[in-house]
């Protein structure tokens, strides 16, 4: 298995109940997985643990046979090769679209960077917006740039936290289709969080249903949602 998560346990410092309980789950390379659950069920927390933004109390995470975290090891977020698209995008306001995307391309030469920026901008269909600043873009456009920025360094795992939540309904449908295509083209193993069935059905190969920090169901999207 490409990604192995076993027995993950976590509690926020000021919370009195555990936020994540014995989370165990494996993902194969190239799979798109959706974590589905109600608000407060711990979806974002799982992503933060995978990214290294939080440290689990117990459990291990391995990516491509490398231990990211266990009792003795903690790989810093910047060393994990995990990309993330945040719920509010977090595009750096003082940098243009191009600078935002180049930001993560640290190990490339100048010309390589240029090529890569064009590649990912093409992928998300935003080539002509290269020199805009984030606040000069619409919500949907910002979202695409955030996606492009996360994909650009070729992460081994891409995390998306409610990628559609800030968009209105029409746009959601269109971007959903686009995202599916983009993820397929890029061939990146991805996990995205949602509380919308349609999202899971449309994009995910596999769905994990989370309730109060515990997995209650795992399976193919159409199986999970077929009975209700």
């Amino acid at each position, binding site marked *: 298995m490409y990604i192995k998560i076993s027995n993950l346990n976590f509690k926020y*410092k000021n919370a009195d109940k555990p936020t994540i309980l014995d989370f165990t789950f494996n993902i194969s390379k190239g799979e798109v997985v959706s974590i589905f659950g109600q608000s407060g069920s711990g979806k974002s927390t799982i992503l933060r643990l995978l*990214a*290294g*933004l939080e*440290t689990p*109390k117990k459990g291990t995470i391995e990516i491509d046979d490398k231990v990211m*975290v*266990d*009792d*003795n*090891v*903690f790989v*810093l*977020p*910047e*060393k*994990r090769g*995990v*990309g*993330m698209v*945040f719920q*509010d995008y*977090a*595009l*750096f*306001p*003082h940098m243009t679209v191009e600078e935002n995307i180049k*930001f*993560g391309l*640290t190990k490339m030469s100048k010309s390589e960077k240029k090529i890569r920026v064009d590649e990912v901008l093409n992928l998300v269909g935003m080539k002509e917006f290269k020199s805009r600043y*984030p*606040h000069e873009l619409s919500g949907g456009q910002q979202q695409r740039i955030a996606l492009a*920025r*996360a994909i650009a*360094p070729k992460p081994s795992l891409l995390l998306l936290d409610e990628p559609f939540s800030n968009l209105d309904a029409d746009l959601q449908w269109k971007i959903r289709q686009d995202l599916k295509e983009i993820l397929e083209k890029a061939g990146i193993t991805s996990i995205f969080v949602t509380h919308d069935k349609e999202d899971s059905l449309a994009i995910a190969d596999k769905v994990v249903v989370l309730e109060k920090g515990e997995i209650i169901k795992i399976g193919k999207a159409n199986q999970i949602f077929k009975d209700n």
Partner: protein
Amino acid sequence: MFIIKSYKHKKDVNDLFKLRDIKTNVNMWSVLSFVVIVLIILPTLNISLKLLNETSENWPHIKEYLLIDYIINTATIVAFGGAFTMIIGTSLAWLITAFKFPMSKFFKWSLLLPLAVPPYVAGFTYHGILNYTGVIQTFLRNNTNINVNQSLFNIMNHKGAIFILTLVLYPYVFAIVRSFLAKQSADLIENSRVLGKSPMATFFKVVLPISRPAIVGGVSLVILEILNEYGLFNYFGISTFSVAIFRTWFGLSDLDSAIRLAAIVMIMVLMILLLEKLMRGRKRYSYTSSKIRPIQPIELKGIKRILATLYCSVIFGFGFLIPTIQLLHWALLTYREILNVKFLGYLYNSLRVTTIATVIIVVISILIANYARIKENILTKIYTRITILGYSIPGAVIAVAVMIFFIDIDNNTYVIRQAISHNSTRLFLSTSLVMLIFAYVIRFLGIGYNSIESGFDKIGKGYFEASRLLGMSVTKTFFKVDLPMIKPAIISGFILVFIDILKELPLTMILRTFNFHTLATKAYQYANDEMIHQAAISSLLIIFISAAMIFVLNMNMSKGGRKNVYKNK
């Protein structure tokens, strides 16, 4: 049940010492923060230990006869000064926020200007205006037959001190309450209006109660400033604690009693801080969301327009304009005598020590604020507390602590230094400006820290986390992402600290090296030697530099307010 519990406890202890956590927690930011924090608390710990020393022969006398005086003097001035600054600061803040009247735009920032006037400067200037040879009495004598009652014109007493302190310290309340009101929603006031309340009733029933935390915060700052004040009280001959600490230490050479007095002041300070916490109520400054409709000022009509302008003019006049004009006049009388190479030296000294200390403070503030934001735990909460503690400690107390600390260091390192070089002297650090700058840093770190912390608060953690996931380390993230975004906060912090250090007196007087003068010490020395006119130019320079910086600060803040693109959760 019990067994399960204790088992769980044991496991938690093991969790605390995981190898991975030690590895990930030791980095440049944590180590440097730790070192700085230790340096900050060492002098205070050192002096606290000395409280255990035997009392000197003076102490019973001080305790019996003088202490009660110190307490009454300090308490009276604190009570009245606090009350008056509260009334003036709050009313002005509301006036400027809610109404438009002639010159209201100008007053919005110029009412902050009295902050540029050091209390001792205001003190001797008003004394100079009012005394027998001053402009008022001279004018009356020459043009009328009025023979004034001298006691009415004597400002060098409790009432005068309260008058002066109110005029130069109300801006603390004004600034904090105004920026609090600017963040409140217009709905609040309009609802009250719709319910048929008059503007007056709205102010007392709605505005005052919601602004309580801000008012209490501002007044606490005023009180701490009064406790810190030395120059004004010494010049007026009023024995407050700060003055008493100096006298006992330098007049009686009784360090142990000075330390005891300092300890009493610290108890008072802690009580005030506690009281502040209680009076603020449960809610602290509430950061309402960015999408509020701020209160729109409405045009005042008729006589009210004039009264509003008049009120602001009177405060601005007494707090800034009148003393400045008087000083300008004296400056014209004395510039030939005063402005020389030596004077340029004082100016250079002032700018040099102030800049060095301010830069150090800003750097330390950034270091600790960034570390505290990345690692939110008990340790960093303690760090934050310690960082801002210095601002509540009066200068006289810090001066005692720092000087003893440095003399102790010098004595303890003498042998080592002797071994390295034969001509090292016993006193080394304690006769250098390092000591003064160190004391400035402890005393004013809190001001820089608050400003920079609020800058970090504003941008949130989202950008930081995004940058980490794009492969940047904490340090690289800081330089590429955080630093450009908190620039306005850094500028504000720098300016606020700079102004405070430029006019600082008690620390500079005690801890300066031999023959080292700043604008502040020189102004004070002249005034104390009954050469008020000669004190004018140094005073004016302090006022002008500070006023210019307040102007820049105001521009910087209103720019930051408009640019809300950086807002993130």
